């Protein structure tokens, strides 16, 4: 058994090559261990002091979000709020102030929960994940990363070091909403993110919609190109129908499969409506759930 605090990225990936598992905030790892989901790893390397992984930087036509950027930072960061609003919406809904202080975007993505809030907005925004090991760096799509609940295609010695997002074009906007039973310490019953790009006349030029907690992973809704050329209520009705049809939810303590299937359509419509409003230049406060009264009342 071993525990080390990495002082450099090279340190961290060298220890991972020897079998150590990384811990950042620990909120998934420690709670999961006590629930018997997975025992604490024998060899642990703490990566929380690698400041180079805690930065948000514009790099040419992309935005780089370091894996250690916390939900608390994301929800309040002006660039994320303006140009990647869906990620800010989702980050603001995670847990409570204390969980948002320790919870990181890298941990959230690598935990690969199908109910994770930041997953759907990252997917519609076209994010890729950067994985670093002693063998080098590779960048893969989130689709290729998530293989099932709690499972990823990352190799055992690969550390998630960043999420890379393309710069959204003009007249575009994104939003994430979720169905919830309470306003804090909640896990999405279902959720949806939308990213739209509008033509000059306000009709939809392109759109991407992803769904939360209705399949083994976050899923992208297929065939949304049928929405191109639509505007207003017609697009909302169409996306609700398509989203419900493509959802494959389970029944559990939080909702039945039928209820989830219906509600994810409602969430998809509301995410699309909010994304269209933002793409039109309207400012909707972060998170959309609170600004528009979606989800749990106080």
């Amino acid at each position, binding site marked *: *058994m071993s525990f080390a605090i990495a002082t450099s990225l090279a340190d961290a990936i060298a220890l991972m090559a020897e079998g150590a598992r990384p*811990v950042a905030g620990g909120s998934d790892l*420690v709670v999961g261990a006590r629930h018997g989901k997975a025992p604490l790893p024998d060899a642990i390397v703490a990566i929380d002091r690698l400041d180079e992984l805690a930065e948000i930087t514009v790099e040419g036509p992309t935005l780089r979000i370091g894996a250690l950027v916390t939900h608390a930072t994301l929800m309040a960061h002006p660039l994320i709020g303006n140009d990647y609003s869906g990620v800010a919406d989702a980050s603001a809904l995670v847990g409570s102030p*204390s969980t948002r202080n320790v919870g990181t975007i890298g941990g959230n993505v690598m935990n690969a929960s199908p109910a994770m809030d930041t997953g759907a907005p990252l997917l519609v925004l076209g994010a890729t994940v950067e994985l670093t090991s002693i063998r080098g760096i590779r960048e893969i799509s989130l689709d290729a990363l998530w293989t099932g609940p709690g499972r990823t295609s990352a190799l055992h010695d690969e550390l998630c070091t960043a999420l890379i997002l393309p710069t959204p074009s003009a007249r575009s906007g994104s939003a994430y909403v979720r169905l919830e039973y309470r306003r*804090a310490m909640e896990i999405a019953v279902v959720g949806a993110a939308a990213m739209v790009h509008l033509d000059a006349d306000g009709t939809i030029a392109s759109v991407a919609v992803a769904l939360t907690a209705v399949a083994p992973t976050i899923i992208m809704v297929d065939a949304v190109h049928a929405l191109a050329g639509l505007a207003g209520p017609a697009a909302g009705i169409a996306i609700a129908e398509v989203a419900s049809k493509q959802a494959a939810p389970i029944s559990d303590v939080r909702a039945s499969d039928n209820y989830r299937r219906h509600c994810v359509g409602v969430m998809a419509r509301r995410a699309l409506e909010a994304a269209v409003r933002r793409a039109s230049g309207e400012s909707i406060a972060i998170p959309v759930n609170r600004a528009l009264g979606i989800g749990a009342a106080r």
Partner: protein
Amino acid sequence: MNVPLKVSVDLTVNGVDYPVTIDQGRNLVSVIRGEIGLTGTKEGCDDCECGACMVLLDGRPVNSCSYLAVQAQGRLITTVEGVMDGDDLHPLQRNLLESGGVQCGFCTPGMIMSATALLARNPHPTEEEIRIGLSGNLCRCTGYAKIVAAVQATAAGS
């Protein structure tokens, strides 16, 4: 089977260094209570839900049930024992008592840690900001109104 690894670390709690030798998998709340002996911090759900175990780590509220104690070395830990000024209660503690914001008292230390962190960052929060600041702390007695009132009174300087 592996024997749990014992790690020797110094933890700085309320400005005092405590050398402890602990299993690497122990959570911070159990070390603060069981090794250091500061029992003001409570263990509630042990699941990152209730906020009874809230401490400040470098000034930010963190659920100490879900944080590895060994990871806290080199950071400044503040518990409810650290908010008093000598024998004088912190104004928020006084206001909680006076407003009836304390009933069974189990959630109170965690509430105090979340609220003092909020007030340090935002000295004049709105009611909504207070409720969001305390949203990771459950109270099953008071209905929250009197706790929110105590934070408001503290912000107003009384």
